[in-house]
């Protein structure tokens, strides 16, 4: 019992010492390094417009619904794309709710993009991501949406396709992960090219 009491005292002291070092000094050192070396990224990769207003983060999906924008993946974060409430649907493979939502999303995707009834739809277009904030869509998904976006904006398809290609990120170090298209950055580029005209 006496040993245990002595160990308790050591425990309290060590917990306090470690709290100062690991919970005070350590995050501050990382903070100082991060803010000095990578300030934009350490603060959320925020995108500001010419008036200095924050319009979003390059890493986080936003809702886009109109035809003139590329549309991101469905989102289960909060009421949708809520960047302070990240979440997936957590619905399982035999969930009726999930199957119903996928059926509806498939039908909607085919309609807005003018696809024939039997056309397979890219999986990322009709399934929710793990975070609900996935900024990317697959290249196949972007290419299928390009014609619709071009038509809605009165642009030649070629021009939109060029923008899609320019916003396609390859695999990291040519091996890791999957090729992808960042929807928010692509849509901002579309708006910019419209403004420039």
């Amino acid at each position: 019992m006496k040993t245990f009491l002595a160990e308790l005292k050591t425990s309290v002291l060590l917990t306090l010492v470690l709290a100062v070092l690991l919970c005070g000094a350590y995050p501050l050192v990382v903070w100082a390094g991060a803010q000095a070396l990578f300030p934009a990224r350490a603060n959320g990769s925020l995108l500001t417009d010419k008036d200095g207003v924050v319009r979003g983060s390059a890493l986080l999906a936003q809702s886009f619904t109109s035809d003139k924008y590329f549309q991101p993946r469905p989102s289960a974060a909060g009421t949708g794309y809520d960047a302070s409430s990240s979440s997936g649907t957590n619905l399982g493979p035999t969930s009726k709710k999930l199957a119903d939502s996928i059926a509806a999303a498939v039908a909607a995707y085919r309609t807005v993009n003018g696809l024939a009834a039997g056309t397979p739809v890219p999986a990322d277009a009709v399934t929710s991501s793990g975070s609900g904030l996935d900024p990317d869509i697959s290249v196949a998904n972007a290419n299928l949406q390009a014609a619709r976006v071009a038509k809605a904006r009165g642009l030649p398809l070629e021009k939109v396709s060029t923008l899609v290609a320019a916003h396609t990120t390859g695999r990291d170090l040519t091996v890791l992960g999957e090729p992808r298209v960042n929807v928010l950055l692509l849509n901002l580029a579309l708006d910019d090219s419209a403004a420039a005209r």
Partner: protein
Amino acid sequence: MNSPNSWLQFALYVGALLVITKPLGLFLVQVLDARGRTFLDPIVRPFERLTYRVCGIDPEKEQGWIGYTLALLAFSLVGMLFTYFILRFQDRLPLNPQGLPGLAPGLAFNTAASFTTNTNWQNYGGEATMSYFSQMVALTIHNFTSAAAGIAIAAALVRGIARHSAKTIGNFWADTVRVTYYLLVPVCVVFALVLVSQGMIQNFKPYTAAKTIEPYTIQVPKTDDKGQPVLGADGKTPVLVDQKVDTQNIVQGPMASQVAIKMLGTNGGGYVNANAAHPFENPTPLSNFLQMLSIFAIPSALTYYLGRMVKNQRHGWAVWGAMAALFVAGALVCWKFEAAGNPIHQKLGVAAADGNLEGKEVRFGIFNSALFATITTDASCGAVNSMHDSFTPIGGLVPLFNIQTGEVIFGGVGAGLYGMLIFVVLAVFIAGLMVGRTPEYLGKKIEAYDVKLVMLVLMLLSATILAGTAWAAVSDWGQAGLNNAGPHGFSEILYAYSSAVGNNGSAFAGLTGNPANGDWHYNVTGGVAMLIGRFLMIVPILALAGNLAGKKLVPASAGTFQTEGFTFVALLVGTVVLVGALTFLPALAIGPVVEHYLMHAGTLF
């Protein structure tokens, strides 16, 4: 599975793991020796000495197994209370720019138990619950200390095996302090900055309100002046009103410093709800690769440490080989079924070649999601980069079964090695029974007392998982938390208790463990299961360490069972799989296995 690129990524991962095992293992040999020397001595040594002086620790004074255990228990108790009270009163503490309230007792208990035991099960969403102070202090301290304590215990057990006719197994305080100062902190500082370079946040700003590009309208329940929902004419359906959404509230905070140790220390508790699926918490495929590597880094190096300490490097590699074989097998199965996708969804028009992308991120794709799920559950990490709840039945069975084997496939930091050594002793015992002679392990006789301790650990943990699952599955409170019906709902409960007892922390995350009505059952049973999983495993293991340390060496003879080479690896793999399968197959059969067949029959719930 027909993408050559994915195979290349797989090879890269295993190759990188193999390459770091020896150098990191040799570093561990120095760190886990109170008189060891490292290249960090000039910087770290003064901090180490100062800590010993302030806390009254004599690093040279070794402890017997009882002393070692008491120190560990005292340290864990103090740490758990520390976290509990910070969480309860975070509203009165600094660094709470979102004005988040203190946690209710049930959730605070569950969370304190969770982080103390290296589980990091989360019955809450981080960004909507925890202040920066709670994240940084109450939670991060355990990410370090529970990891350091795990490594310390593994070292104590290895010393018990390596020594003979000895009374002591090391000094808990020196082990914990040295692992933290020489290994965890230095690696994490560098790792955290690399993660920031990929896009992870590290700041103390309040959440950012962004003005979105295309505002949209949602329907929300109308509320009256008192905040109560207004009901329609029938008195039941809430009245809905349109609400324009033109801002996106972007999470901020000191994330990178916490994520680095969450991965390296195999803790796994996410800064945000979506954990490593969130683009801030895992921005790129490269950050994903490094996070996966950091999970296995220390557990893998500890096998080298084992070989070095017992002066039989081939034994260390044999243990590594058994772990690697089980890891590769699990990853291949999980990948195959996720890539095959869900026939129900494919009938609805989803492109079959894309696999099952529900709950997964595009930048990682099927392969990296399946690989991450396998790694995080082989280890006791529990971070997720995709939602296991939405995996195909067999794809989800792999992480579940990995946890149920006791997380010995590389495993948690320290916990993986001491868990695997339990199976090594059992395998040696079985081999001894087969040839009809007293089993020996590295020159020591394995006797009834040792085997009893091993069996005690295995049975206690399995019984806790199955009893907890059974209780929840037949209770109203258990079923109320489910997000899915049918066999998948049962899998959610089974996964929850497996994860709690295994100190993993990943989940079939649809399960609501902290319901709005304040029901305490999941919070309390989960918390108790985590404490059992950690401490009722550690105490017998330290007893085993003490007993082994005191044994005399017997010279090897022609009949001695070789604990190296292919036969041993095969026997060890067989023991792990058989014990896990015999214990859990009935439960798995009525969860994921039956769901697999129902999915192919097109049944929906």
